[in-house]
């Protein structure tokens, strides 16, 4: 048992080291990467535009539910006027960055891991190496840079739509004055909250996209599955680990920033 525990611990440390080196080398590769802006723009389109519908839909429903639940809870204490504060702080400080990141992992991260896995299996990545093209610089660096820009933007959009959802619930359905709701929002949210929101979004974006890229890029190193099964296994691992990582990182960042 001790041996198994030791083996797993070593494997974990080894994996973390590999992941850290992969991310570091990808950033280093930016220096030698050519036509980077074009590739970053393409990655932003992949991560951003394609994920827009899911961000809008989930953001709206999150706001609607928060507005509904918040109104009835606050109503017990006669504090319905604070609904705007409750919805906005919940969205800006926690739910916005976390839920937006989870949606982006599910949509963009999984697609990314699968695409890289297929490119590895069909020797497209090996072809880049034979051409003298830095495969990390060509395939990974633009996606990491894009994630640092896209995740905060998508989170901002998620929060905005969520606030409108909360307003719809509170004002349109439950009769709270819109002015009361929006003034509470304005009074509650400070620049520190917005800063925390963007720090979280950028961190989640970098960590999750790097992890998805890592698993897809290294599909061939999976000893238990190869071919299509290997791609499927690395995609699943990428999504599960990224989701856990978002929640773990959220706790760590919150404990530092609160």
């Amino acid at each position, binding site marked *: 048992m001790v041996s198994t525990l030791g083996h797993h611990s070593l494997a974990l440390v080894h994996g973390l080291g590999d992941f850290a080196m992969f991310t570091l080398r990808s950033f280093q590769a930016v220096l030698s990467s*050519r*036509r980077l802006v074009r590739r970053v723009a393409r990655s932003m389109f992949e991560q951003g535009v394609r994920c827009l519908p899911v961000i809008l839909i989930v953001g709206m429903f999150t706001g609607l539910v928060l507005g509904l639940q918040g109104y009835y809870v606050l109503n017990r204490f006669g504090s319905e006027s604070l609904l705007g504060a409750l919805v906005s702080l919940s969205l800006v400080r926690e739910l916005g960055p976390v839920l937006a990141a989870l949606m982006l992992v599910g949509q963009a991260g999984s697609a990314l891991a699968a*695409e890289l896995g297929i*490119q590895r299996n*069909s*020797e*497209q990545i*090996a*072809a*880049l*190496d*034979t*051409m*003298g*093209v830095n495969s990390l610089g*060509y395939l990974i660096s633009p996606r990491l840079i894009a994630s640092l820009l896209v995740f905060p933007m998508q989170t901002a959009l998620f929060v905005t739509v969520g606030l409108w959802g909360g307003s719809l619930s509170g004002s349109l359905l439950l009769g709270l004055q819109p002015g009361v709701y929006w003034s509470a929002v304005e009074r509650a949210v400070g620049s520190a909250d917005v800063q925390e929101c963007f720090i979280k979004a950028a961190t989640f974006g970098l960590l999750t996209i790097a992890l998805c890229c890592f698993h897809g890029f290294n599909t061939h190193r999976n000893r238990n599955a190869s071919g299509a099964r290997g791609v499927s296994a690395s995609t699943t691992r990428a999504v599960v680990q990224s989701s856990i990582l978002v929640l773990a990182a959220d706790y760590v960042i919150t404990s530092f920033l609160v």
Partner: protein
Amino acid sequence: MAAAPSPLLLQVQGVHKRFGDNVVLAGADLDVPRGTLVTVLGRSGTGKSVFLKCLADVMPADEGRILFDGRPLTIKDAQTRADFRRRCSFLFQSNALFDSLTALENVALPLEQTTNLSDHEIHERSLEALKQLELEKHLDRYPGQLSGGMQKRLALARAIVTRPELVLFDEPTAGLDPLRRNAVFLMIAKYQRQFGFTAVIVTHDVTEALVASDRVALLDKGVMHFQGTPAEFSASSDAVVASFRDSAAHLGTTLASIRAGADIHSED
């Protein structure tokens, strides 16, 4: 005064490669003279592709030396390796084309990423390569929309667009019918003469290789069992060479025996 270039563009000396307990290459050697078309023959599973990947610097060899233009390729010498990659192209068995890029984008990719040419120059050179391979009508098509032969030509266009001195072909005729096999060998021989690059092909198609190549090598049990001209290969009395070369005749004899009702003993 500058030193005269070596007549050998590529020299492989005692390359070893193993995967766990499986020894794939056990000291393989190969000399590739400048401007020639060299074919490495061997049965399936003898490590021809591994040998080629070691040559292409995609897979590190465990032991041995590879000299390109007289200079050894070593892990520490990044400059020589970068120079080698700039002057060498590799054609994968699967073609390894980027399926999310069009034919034109596929060909332009190595120029975009490894040169400082302007967008206009890259476009012109990519177009020229595609025209030379008779693919100018399919610029905007994705690899998945092209036939197998066209994909092969597209992969060759991508390989030659950087004007390499050495092109390595990994089983370019695998899975093709005899007519297409001939066409691919003809295409390689034609463009090898036209562009003047040195070519190394690994294949198990003996007949086509003997017609198209300047030199032939036979990989068997991890070592290069034979190296010479096609005429020398055809005339060799070596048992391994003969069994590989005369496999079709051997098949005919064996089939005749089956039809005659005799017992068959496979050599394998």
